[in-house]
């Protein structure tokens, strides 16, 4: 008898599961873990103030999120992909191949990347050249490329403290690393003249390929333990920094602003990073933040358009909104974004 009971309950359960999935009524968002905190703040406020359910927001990375969005159209696919870097042609092609023809590109603000040390440590004032000379695998010396042997910051630049070099850099899977590579390392590479030397020895069919290879060579960081890749979150960088007071960590501005009691920020080219100095463009290491909306889902998934409009409204993404309070650098051209969202203008081809 018992076994009949069990079988019956299994059947009942199987029936319950086999029912056609009810129409999805909540928005699904995925993508960059840098954008994740901003998206959760908006989602929470959206759930509080609208009669729609709170959107479900996932992290996991910009690239993975865009791929997930490009899987196709329909309730089983996500509606929005958050991204800390601009979408690439390969993703657009993938989207088109899967029937996702129109995508709304929404740039909602900027994020700064800061260098910080333990709060009771020495003060640092970096330039991109300092960071390059300290961390690159090969540096220019007397007109030739040599292996980087600097052991202390003072060896790199006499104005810096005589402290052992140890930098905690985001791992290559992070969007932050790309910005660090381009805005700091590459800038330093050019400034110190190493770029020209790399260019002279670069292989390639034409100038463009040579240039790309030279850039790649610039981005090589030293592997003797002075530069450590952190593949986890900023919390891991902070924990390592706690353990070794000599270390310099690379963080997002919002993470630093939430941990100012533990971290001391370094200046870059003499500019203190803040939402103001990033907005004005004085602080060089920053990047735009995006999210991409599947246009075919607007009007199908309830509340999708309202969520997107709410996200870019002055109330949320404006300079006095909660996102700015958390560390987002408000986009000076927010009004244009709002207009584009209201008109549901899909993005054109990449220039």
């Amino acid at each position: 008898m018992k076994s009949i009971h069990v079988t019956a309950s299994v059947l009942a359960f199987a029936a319950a599961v086999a029912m056609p999935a009810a129409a999805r009524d909540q928005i699904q968002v995925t993508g960059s873990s840098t954008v994740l905190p901003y998206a959760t703040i908006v989602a929470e406020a959206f759930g509080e103030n609208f009669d729609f359910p709170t959107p479900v927001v996932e992290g996991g990375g910009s690239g993975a999120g865009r791929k997930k969005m490009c899987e196709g159209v329909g309730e089983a696919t996500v509606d929005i992909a958050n991204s800390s870097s601009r979408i690439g042609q390969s993703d657009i092609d993938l989207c088109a191949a899967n029937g996702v023809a129109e995508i709304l590109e929404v740039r909602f603000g900027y994020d700064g990347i800061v260098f910080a040390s333990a709060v009771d440590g020495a003060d640092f004032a970096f330039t991109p050249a300092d960071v390059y000379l300290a961390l690159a695998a090969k540096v220019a010396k007397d007109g030739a490329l040599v292996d980087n042997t600097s052991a202390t910051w003072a060896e790199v630049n006499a104005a810096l403290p005589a402290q052992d070099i140890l930098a905690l850099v985001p791992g290559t899977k992070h969007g932050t690393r790309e910005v660090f590579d381009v805005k700091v390392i590459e800038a330093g590479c050019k400034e110190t003249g190493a770029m020209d030397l790399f260019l002279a020895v670069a292989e390639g069919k034409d100038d463009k390929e040579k240039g790309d290879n030279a850039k790649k060579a610039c981005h090589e960081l030293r592997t003797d333990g002075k530069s450590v890749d952190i593949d986890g979150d900023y919390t891991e960088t902070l924990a390592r920094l706690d353990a070794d007071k000599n270390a310099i960590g690379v963080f997002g501005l919002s993470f630093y602003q939430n941990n100012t009691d533990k971290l001391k920020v370094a200046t870059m080219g003499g500019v203190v990073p803040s939402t103001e100095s990033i907005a004005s463009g004085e602080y060089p290491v920053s990047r735009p933040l995006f999210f991409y909306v599947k246009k075919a889902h607007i009007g199908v998934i309830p509340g999708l358009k309202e969520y997107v409009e709410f996200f870019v409204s002055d109330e949320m993404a404006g300079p006095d909104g909660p996102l700015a309070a958390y560390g987002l650098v408000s986009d000076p051209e927010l009004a244009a974004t709002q207009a584009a969202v209201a008109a549901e203008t899909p993005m054109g081809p990449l220039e």
Partner: protein
Amino acid sequence: MTDISQFPAGPMRVTPPKQSILTASANMKRRNAAESRFKAYGVAAIAIALGSLAIMLFTIFRDGTSSFTQAQLAFPMELTAEVLDPKGNRDREEMTKVTTVGYSKVLVAALQAELQKQGIVQDGITDKEIGELISKDAAGQLRAQVLADTSLVGTTITADVLAGGRIDGYLKGRVTLETAERDSNVTPEQLLLADKLSEAGILTTGWNWSFFTSPDASDQRPEAAGLGVALLGSAYMMLIVLVTCVPVGVAASIYLEEFAPKNRWTDAIEVNISNLAAVPSIVFGILGLAIFINFAGLPNSSSVVGAFVLSLMTLPTIIIATRASIKAVPPSIRDAALGIGASKMQTVFHHVLPLAMPGILTGTILGLASALGETAPLLLIGMVAFVDNYPSAPPEGFLDPATALPVQVYSWASRADPAFIERSNGAIIVLLVFLVIMNVGAILLRRRFERRW
């Protein structure tokens, strides 16, 4: 062996021992020394294991216990009709136009009025900073409360709201006046005002039920984050895992153990089951994404998909435990039943299975416990997410988005605000309590019902 061979067997040609057996020979000393060394290694191994466990538990409890209490503000508040219902019709539709911004103004005004009434003054603090003492979550809660009962507008109620995360941290000793100097989210003046508020009895610390009931919260309001959705999601998943795994696992084991012919096929199945038990759990996540979401079209982030993935992972464990306990039932029981005319099936269901039950239950509970603590496969099926709405009641609720306990630990541990470290450790404690209860249950069942032959 060498010890014995010193005394060759055969005719009695025993050479008299060179020394008394009461004094230890060199050989015996060596053997005794080896034994005590081995014991010392064993004790050292246990000490290392216990030591690491103690350190782990100590840090978890040191950082986590404070999440079970929470700072709260209680003050009378007039729900001013001019702000909350400008048109005065008490019409819910019209009142939804007032956002949480409006409600937070009412809250801040009420707190300021109370400060004035009680004569609490703090120099060098702005009105905005006073407002920041109140959690950002409070306005949303108040709005939901008022919209649910519009007759509240115009009355004076007691606001029971959470204090901000930094104020909470101050009462718990995580934030000090010294760190507040450098902290961009709190000023020392706010902390001094918090001191005065606790003296006046407005700011109190109490048991934090909302940690167990409220859903997750965003990075700006760690004080409001709770385990509600995660507990529900974990409960749903365990229920489905139980309902799918036990019948399938037990039926498979009974067939393999009692009915199946011993041939190449059953051998292959046996090897595969043992192999599956050792497959890394993330593999099941990849499988789940491909089969349940992409192929079967089940919704992303839903507890039913999570449960199916965990079921696949738990099944081998349950089958192995069940087969072992069926095998442990002595053949004489089966022979006796068959001897008095019972059919094979009657033998199994009337005699073997009841005797094997304690072992099956123990195996099932241990399998469930490991499924409860699993995060990796859930990453791939979208359950590591910010989910703010409770899943509805089963069975529809199985299709709603949910998270799970270990997932909440993981996502809180990667948040920027330091207050989430406390929450994360608190969630670990809750998870550990559940695991201990399950494991103790398994031990008790085994003690109570196990039979030895």
